[in-house]
């Protein structure tokens, strides 16, 4: 699912709280646009020295050796996410993710994270529509300990009512922060709810607030017992460890857990889309308008093969950096936008998404941006892409694949995410080859399949409350020129 619906146990590291931080050529611009920060990231990358084996209980284990620093990362992915919630229980997967830190008989009283911290490690977790992931990074000598602890909570979770109730307040605070008090968060939630008419991707991973209030201990335990099993998980160990070591450690931890029957995931299908949808959210706190459109797209696993690689290339051609087509045309030449982004996310079980977004200059007009993007799309559909655009984009993606190796947890996340939605290790390793063979006609065909009107899409526009497409120039401070005297 789209990364925007990824919900962390605590996403608020200092830099997250304060947003800007570390500009990558004005990364602060990225916070204007959903998907912008992932636009140029490869969905995965080649050549991780990965080795895979499966325990007798069905747990798939992957080891990615990286001996740069004496540290390891452990990530476990369960095939259960927001879209697996029973009716009326939206948010239960994410709630359980939080509750997984509460305790077991051998690691009681919320001691999980404290133990990790005491050992000099860091830990966290996140939930998406399709899966739930838990991870730790720590010095290599503690690998056995964290594998024991993660295996332990796969089966021995204990929940007390008091803990469940206070944690429910925590996730409601999380919702206030990420959605209720953030107009962009509210618009994003509405866009997903509108893009999907029937499929459960329409429900927020965090949950609707009224349903969150009704989430109980029994709901969390039922979800836990239904989905958390070794045969429904993927374990990835990355860093300064060998496959032989991990094999022995896994046998003594996860290997002791029995497989259990896990029901098939039953997801509703989308009906044909009859109408394009358009959402406008106005809010007094908004000063910078943004425009965004999300198209339903194939997943990586959908036929025909090669389509998803073509969509990766298409996104890169359209908005992969300052030399990309939309950036050049809309930002540099026509000056209708200060930033644009395009991203394809096909790492989903049921439906992928292709997202375009743009921010007009302060006080500028989102309608003009939209018309320009629509023009670009029709030119793309009729004329396709040039050979030089194609080869430049492919070269950038190939380099990104090499750079993706320069990280401890990054490769673990890429591998785990792919495997948990049903891709194979070979799919990951051959991604650069699949990119390399994409031709201009493939890109145009993929663009046709996803972007051609009346493609199933939803357009979302975030606007200041009182500005009707009229340029309001900033006078003193950024808010001073706005009508209504709203205090920024």
């Amino acid at each position, binding site marked *: 699912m789209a990364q925007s619906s990824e919900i962390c146990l*605590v996403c*608020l590291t*200092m*830099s997250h*709280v*304060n*947003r800007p*931080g570390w*500009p990558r*050529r*004005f990364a602060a*611009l990225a*916070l*204007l646009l959903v998907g912008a920060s992932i636009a140029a990231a490869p969905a995965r990358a080649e050549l991780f020295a990965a080795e895979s084996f499966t325990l007798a209980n069905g747990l798939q284990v992957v080891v990615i050796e990286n001996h*740069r*620093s*004496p*540290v390891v990362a452990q990530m476990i992915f369960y095939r259960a996410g927001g879209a697996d919630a029973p009716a009326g229980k939206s948010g239960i997967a994410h709630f359980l993710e939080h509750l997984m*830190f509460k305790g077991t008989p051998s690691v009681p009283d919320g001691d999980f*994270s404290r133990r990790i*911290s*005491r*050992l*000099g*490690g*860091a830990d966290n977790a996140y939930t998406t529509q399709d899966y739930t992931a838990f991870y730790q990074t720590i010095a290599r000598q503690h690998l056995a300990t964290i594998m024991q602890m993660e295996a332990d909570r796969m089966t021995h979770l204990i929940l007390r009512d008091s803990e469940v109730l*206070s*944690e*429910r*307040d*925590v*996730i409601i*605070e999380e919702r*206030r922060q990420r959605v*209720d*008090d*953030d*107009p962009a968060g509210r618009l994003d939630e509405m866009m997903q709810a509108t893009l999907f008419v029937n499929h459960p991707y329409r429900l927020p991973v965090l949950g609707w607030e009224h349903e969150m209030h009704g989430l109980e201990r029994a709901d969390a335990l039922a979800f836990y017992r239904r989905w958390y099993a070794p045969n429904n998980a993927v374990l990835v160990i990355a860093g300064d460890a060998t496959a032989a070591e991990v094999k022995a450690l896994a046998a003594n931890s996860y290997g002791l857990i029995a497989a259990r029957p896990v029901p098939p995931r039953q997801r509703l299908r989308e009906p044909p889309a009859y109408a394009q949808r358009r959402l406008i959210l106005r809010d007094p706190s*908004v*000063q910078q308008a943004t425009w965004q459109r999300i198209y339903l797209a194939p997943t990586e696993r959908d036929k025909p093969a090669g389509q998803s690689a073509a969509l990766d290339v298409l996104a890169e051609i359209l908005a992969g950096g*300052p030399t990309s087509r939309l950036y050049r045309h809309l930002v*540099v030449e026509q*000056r209708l936008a*200060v930033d644009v982004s395009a991203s394809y996310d096909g790492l989903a079980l049921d439906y992928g998404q292709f997202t375009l977004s743009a*921010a007009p*200059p*302060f006080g500028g007009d989102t309608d003009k941006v939209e018309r320009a993007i629509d023009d670009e799309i029709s030119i793309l559909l009729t004329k396709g892409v040039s050979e030089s655009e194609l080869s430049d984009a492919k070269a950038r993606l190939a380099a*990104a694949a*090499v*750079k993706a*190796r*320069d*990280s*401890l947890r990054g490769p673990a996340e890429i591998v785990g995410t792919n495997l948990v939605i049903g891709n194979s290790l070979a799919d990951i390793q051959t991604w650069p080859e699949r990119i390399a063979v994409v031709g201009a006609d493939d890109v145009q065909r993929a663009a046709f399949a996803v972007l051609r009107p009346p493609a199933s899409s939803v357009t979302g526009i975030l606007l200041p409350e009182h500005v009707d497409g009229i340029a309001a120039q*900033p006078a*003193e401070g*950024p*808010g001073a020129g706005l009508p209504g005297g709203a*205090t*920024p």
Partner: protein
Amino acid sequence: MNRSFATIAFAALAWLGLCAPAAAMERVISPGGIEAWLIEDHSNPLISLAIGFHGGSALDPVGKEGLAYLASGLLDEGAGNLDSAAFQAKLADLAIDFNFEADDDSFVGRMRTLTGHRDEAFDLLHLALTRPRIDAAPLDRVRNQVLSIIAAEAGDPGSIAGQAWLRLMLDGHPYSRPLKGDAKTLAAITARDLREFAAKRFGRDQMRIAVVGDISAAELGLLLDRSFRDLPAKAASIALPEVGPPAKGGIAVIARDLDQSIVLFGHAGIKRDDPDFYAAALLDDIEGGGNFASRLQRSLREKRGLVYSIDTGLVMLDHAALLSGRFGTKNASVAQAIQLVRADWQRMRDAGPTASELADAKTHLIGEYPLRFDSTRKAADSLLGIELAGLPMDYVDKRAGHFDAVTLADAKRVAKRLYDAQALRFLVLGRPAGVAGDLVSPPID
């Protein structure tokens, strides 16, 4: 706030000591006398470089606030005989990552390249630092980008609270000004100002360089000369006055329609070169900096469900030091949460940490350090952080010892020195129930 906390993150790089690749680390002095710290690592065909200059946006002239930040967006928009499009095309074709960042006290550039394009990457960095063009069209475009970022932040509660917090704590000092400037100051900045900025700020006396990856010391030495030798020997003065927060504690409220109030809190902190720094860092880890394990997390999040997150940190600027934190809670709980923070602060002052808390904080801060070296980019940032903090290269080996040497008696003494519930200032943005402000709220631009 983005600044003060970005600064924490940066300072953290400097003190989360190292037990990692000390053996592979070396000081490279080029034939021409340029120094860089290097970790050779040939596991991937990649090189990351971080270059920092002392002197950041706090030096922006009055009326031209945002100068350093704007410059950080323009250095890769054309240099030498390459205009913006040609420069960007070259970066893209060669898959070179480039970015510049202005902080309060420093200006940092980062470059990452595949080994095969190493020489071109260094040449482009050289051009960007010595001959930035600042052509009219990119200047106009980037200025508009900054205006949009400012507008977005002006609608973002976290950003608003962060800026107001600096006003409340460091009023009148350049640190309290908006780092990105505003519409008026940005309009006042000319291409000439930006070119002068580069000429005045990028002096070799203020320059520090860290390199990690697929390159040998001899190769790096030659590139250092080629890239940085013709920078001016000296930068313009970077002198600034010292500043501290007012001693009087209290609460300032900025009314705003939010479901969840954002609360920032803190008082005077401790400088990086203070002998009590290591004890203070341990105390902060215990009280609120240690993420899930901290006392405040436990009290406000785990036990009572009042917040999604609460964090504290030592803000260590070159001329100011704060101990500050932040949380968000529904308007009805603000009074209770403030009360809890005050009580916990008092408890830390009165009794200090327990022996086991201190031991846990030591293993945490010592143990997590190697995680800061798990990619070439992070490792280069970590090294540069040590250099900019003025610490010696063997700090990397000695850091763990500095933390280990802190006794329980030291920690208790420093807790009394540092934690002061009476002096705590709270800034609340929201509609808190039953909370009366007794401090004058800082104005919002």
